[in-house]
């Protein structure tokens, strides 16, 4: 039936791919605790940079839950020259396990720490 080495290679890869994909999804489905979305933001203050009129602070958002957050709104708060300032970013979808890169824009270099809070999200 399989008449050459290439056919055997194709069969082996195919079987591995199908078993791997379906197996992974089955296991994932079984161990899925259904935990609600849990967004976690890692600010990269060291990688912040200045552009004309703004101070950009890059960040990575992760989701520690099992469910996807939709229309996630994140708010960064910082003090610049003694005045408190807020910056909001909306993430369309935050799937579990996937990193989404965002950037907050502020009017200048912040005096102290930048804090980030989750304003809200939708469950799809």
């Amino acid at each position: 039936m399989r008449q050459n080495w290439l056919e055997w290679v194709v069969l082996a890869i195919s079987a591995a791919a199908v078993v791997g994909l379906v197996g992974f999804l089955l296991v994932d489905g079984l161990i899925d605790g259904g935990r609600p979305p849990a967004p976690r933001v890692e600010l990269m203050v060291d990688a912040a940079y200045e552009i004309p009129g703004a101070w950009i602070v890059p960040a990575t958002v992760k989701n520690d839950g099992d469910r996807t957050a939709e229309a996630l709104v994140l708010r960064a708060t910082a003090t610049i020259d003694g005045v408190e300032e807020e910056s909001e970013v909306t993430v369309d979808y935050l799937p579990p396990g996937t990193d989404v890169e965002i950037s907050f824009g502020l009017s200048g270099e912040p005096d102290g720490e930048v804090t980030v809070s989750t304003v809200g999200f939708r469950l799809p």
Partner: protein
Amino acid sequence: MARRVHGEAVMSKAHERNGPKSSVSTTLRDLVRASGGGLLVGLPLLYTLEMWAHSFLLPSWKIVVLVGVAFVVVVGYSAVSGFRRDRTWTELLIDSVETMGIAAVVSTVALLLLGRIGAETGLRDAVGKIALEMIPVAFGVSLAGTQLASPEDDPEDAEDQGSAVANEGGVGAFGRLFIAGGAALLFALNIAPTEEPVLLGVEAEWWMLLLVVPATLAITFALVFYADFRGGRAFEVGDSPLDHPFTETLAAYAVSLLVCLLLMWAFGRTDGASWSTIVGQTVMLAVVASFGAAAGRLLVGGPPEKQQQPQEAS
């Protein structure tokens, strides 16, 4: 390497003995054709935003169910379409696993090249995307193995392929309905993940839906039994109750509705939806599904004298 060369020498001897089916270059050509057919059918959905999003919006078990349904369609299509009809069930199953596997590899490469999966993508997200996108690609791979193969590819089976099976007895009424269901799935899958069926269904007045149903039935009936497409059939009544043009049209429509319901459920469109919304979007999506069901029946259901023509010409 030496072993491989030796292997090829043996293969080319086998090639002389058994025909072109056994050589590595033929297998390679089959693979390229399979990948091409897969992309031909799968590309629209590889470029569909909702497909990417549904990888993480759908629970894992729903994706497994969809892949399972696709596998059944692939097995059934190979069994019914009559290509290499001498195969045993084991061979059929192994070939179908191969179809799914090729589809998985093709969608992985395509998603990587399109930048839909990458190092920053979560594993579950990536696997979900590959599993969903491999469904339409697998249908394409499956078609590439039968409908899109040139007759010279396998001379002994040439009369069994081309546009359809060789004789009308090859595909019975139920086989035709199965193909109708598979083709309905293939067509409707292109629309089902998007927002449009929901909008159409919600915004349609009840009398519009009542008009859409007979319009769908009339058009699909005409496509298969009147419009004289290649593979179309004359108005003939067979032995089985499903062998009548009217009953077959109705049954194919019912199958299309079921396929649409399955898809709407799978893509979460029935969650929390009212009955009128579910009926509306199913009827609207079934227009597309029925066209697929008609096309599928055209593909397998033609009378023998009609399908022989293109092969004689080639």
